[in-house]
């Protein structure tokens, strides 16, 4: 049994066999053999080689006869695996350096990589890719990947990192938990895990080395702990805890559908951040009063072709109808940056977070933007829709985006659609320049929504995906609190509502501050809604306003954290943190 620590980013407890997802970052542990283990290790190596060769032959059998070259590339691959030099050198390393087969293979591969790198001929040089791929296959077989776990069985996904494309490939019904080597509270894995209600722990150093495929894992998504091959005793303890969690959640959920009103009668709209149509039932069940952030990228990043207007419309209509009469807030395409589009031929950028993304990309690609706006506006006839633009940095962008909406409305009217009311238009406030001119922006939109993830990233110049600086990402930074204050003030002075839809909005710890700022709406991953509503009902709005006043007088995140902590303790509310 071994305990590994990371950051718990999606609460819940899961127990299941490990499935190591090949991401090219899979690390291999060096295991020193006892002399008497050598023969067995060499046998293990040969068995894995043979199994991999069998797999290749199987592939060949499935190729239609007329396409099989008498000596196909698969035969060349088989010969590479049978290559006498490769086999001999691997065996020698196992025997002489007393290392495991995986490690020996990696070393032999490195030697070939070195040799092939020097070759002048491009075609021949590229053959090393074949060998890399083949050796990966053998190593996977060695680790028992194919024998123990398939993705069709319930499993805990272990990876260096998960890209949007990786997570899209996974089946939510068989994925019990996510564990990644890198990442932060706001990384893609965390967001997807939360939205699907799957426990996740990120930033677990060395996890791809420590865990072998098929190992039994306990994942505690709240405490941020991963236990490898637990003892029976520990397993039972965790099963108890899981039951306890479920009971507590059931208790919280019982009142989830009631509104969130503070003790002194201040009501806050609590809405859901969603990405998939599949999340709709859970969001409603957990008490979402509509959607404060509908991320619309999914249909763009998971397939090879761009989605058609009809396809978008059909999905949007179902979401809008599903939440009717509550609001669904569409965030127009926020692609670029850490996400990617398969078919948008975007140039590689050195600094994607500051590059061509979100509204900038949409304004540059009128067809892309208009197709989405047409689908949203058509869907708006089936319920209550709002539209917001991401990454607004100035008035010019906002005006141009609004012009697009007007043009699309005119087009649709000409086509015979009747709009009684048009969707409210909002700006996401997530760039410091937008905060600085929030008073100007407020004159031209119907609402603001604060995207804290990006706002904090841009304000503090922290790349939240960079493991070396991620710890500096600090929602309680006095600068962040001042920015929020400024946005809410500007919005309210202009008489418009101010929402918050970043991860911060779903963190119970920040809730007294967020309520105190006077935010009108908090939008979060559906899982957090019951706990947030529950705590709001125990807060006093006036007291929260005072807390904000106090916090704004302090100079460091640490001081503010202590202030909030003691505020919770004085009121005996710390109990409400543990909400899983």
């Amino acid at each position, binding site marked *: 049994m071994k305990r590994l620590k990371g950051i718990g980013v999606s609460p819940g407890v899961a127990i299941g066999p490990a499935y190591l997802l090949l991401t090219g970052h899979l690390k291999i542990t060096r295991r020193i053999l006892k002399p008497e283990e050598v023969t067995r290790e060499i046998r293990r190596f040969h068995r894995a080689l043979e199994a991999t060769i069998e797999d290749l032959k199987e592939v060949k059998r499935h190729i239609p006869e007329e396409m099989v070259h008498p000596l196909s590339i698969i*035969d060349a691959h088989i010969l590479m695996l049978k290559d006498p030099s490769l086999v001999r050198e691997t065996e020698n390393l196992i025997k002489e350096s007393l290392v495991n087969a995986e490690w020996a293979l990696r070393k032999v591969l490195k030697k070939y990589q070195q040799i092939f790198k020097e070759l002048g001929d491009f075609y021949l040089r590229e053959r090393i890719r074949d060998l890399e791929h083949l050796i990966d296959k053998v190593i996977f077989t060695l680790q028992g990947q194919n024998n123990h776990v398939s993705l069709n069985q319930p499993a805990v996904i272990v990876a260096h990192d998960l890209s949007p494309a990786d997570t899209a490939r996974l089946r939510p019904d068989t994925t019990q938990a996510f564990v990644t080597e890198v990442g932060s509270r706001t990384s893609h894995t965390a967001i997807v895990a939360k939205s699907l209600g799957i426990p996740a722990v990120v930033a677990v150093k060395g996890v791809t080395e420590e865990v072998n495929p098929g190992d039994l894992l306990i994942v505690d998504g709240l405490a941020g702990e991963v236990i490898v091959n637990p003892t029976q005793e520990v397993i039972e303890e965790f099963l108890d805890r899981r039951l306890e969690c479920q009971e507590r959640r059931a208790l919280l959920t019982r009142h989830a559908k009631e509104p969130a009103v503070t003790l002194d009668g201040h009501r806050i709209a609590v809405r859901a951040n969603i990405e998939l149509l599949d999340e709709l039932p859970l969001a409603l069940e957990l008490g979402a009063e509509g959607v404060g952030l509908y991320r619309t990228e999914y249909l763009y990043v998971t397939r090879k072709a761009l989605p058609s207007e009809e396809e978008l419309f059909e999905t949007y209509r179902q979401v809008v109808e599903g939440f009717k009469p509550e609001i669904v807030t569409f965030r127009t395409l926020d692609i670029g940056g850490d996400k990617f589009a398969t078919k948008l031929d975007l140039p590689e950028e050195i600094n994607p977070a500051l590059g061509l993304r979100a509204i900038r990309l949409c304004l540059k690609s009128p067809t892309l933007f208009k197709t989405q706006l047409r689908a949203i506006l058509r869907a708006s006839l089936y319920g209550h829709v709002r539209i917001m633009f991401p990454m607004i940095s100035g008035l010019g962008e906002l005006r141009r985006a609004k012009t697009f909406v007007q043009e699309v409305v005119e087009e649709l009217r000409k086509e015979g659609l009747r709009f009684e009311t048009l969707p409210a238009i909002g700006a996401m406030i997530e760039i410091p320049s937008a905060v600085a001119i929030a008073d100007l922006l407020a004159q031209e939109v119907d609402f603001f929504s604060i995207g804290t993830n990006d706002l904090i990233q841009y304000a503090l110049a922290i790349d939240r995906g960079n493991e070396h600086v991620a710890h500096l990402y600090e929602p309680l930074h006095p600068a962040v609190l001042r920015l929020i204050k400024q946005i809410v003030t500007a919005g309210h002075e202009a008489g418009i509502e101010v929402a918050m839809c970043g991860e911060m909005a779903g963190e119970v710890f920040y809730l007294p501050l967020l309520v105190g700022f006077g935010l009108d709406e908090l939008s979060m991953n559906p899982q957090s809604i019951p706990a947030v509503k529950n705590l709001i009902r125990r807060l006093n709005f006036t007291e929260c306003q005072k807390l904000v006043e106090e916090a704004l007088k302090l100079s460091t995140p640490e001081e503010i954290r202590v202030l909030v902590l003691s505020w919770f303790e004085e009121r005996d509310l710390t109990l409400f943190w543990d909400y899983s």
Partner: protein
Amino acid sequence: MLRKEVIIENELGLHARPAAKLAETAKRYRAKIYLKKGSRKAEAHSILDVLALACTKGSVVEVIAEGEEAERALSEIVALLSSRGA
């Protein structure tokens, strides 16, 4: 020990498929068969070592065979290497 020089005629050089064919052929003989290009030598039935010799079109390669049936092996391999289809 028998030796003979050949010039590689295949457009792509001794790439994966011809190297595979070479390895398959060499394996049928008990004779030890080597390819030598410049100062570097590779066993003919090691596809990786043969690829690493980087025998592009026009390279001069020495085929070496020793042991049982060395003569037949040598002539078959030489024929293979100097054919365009190899």
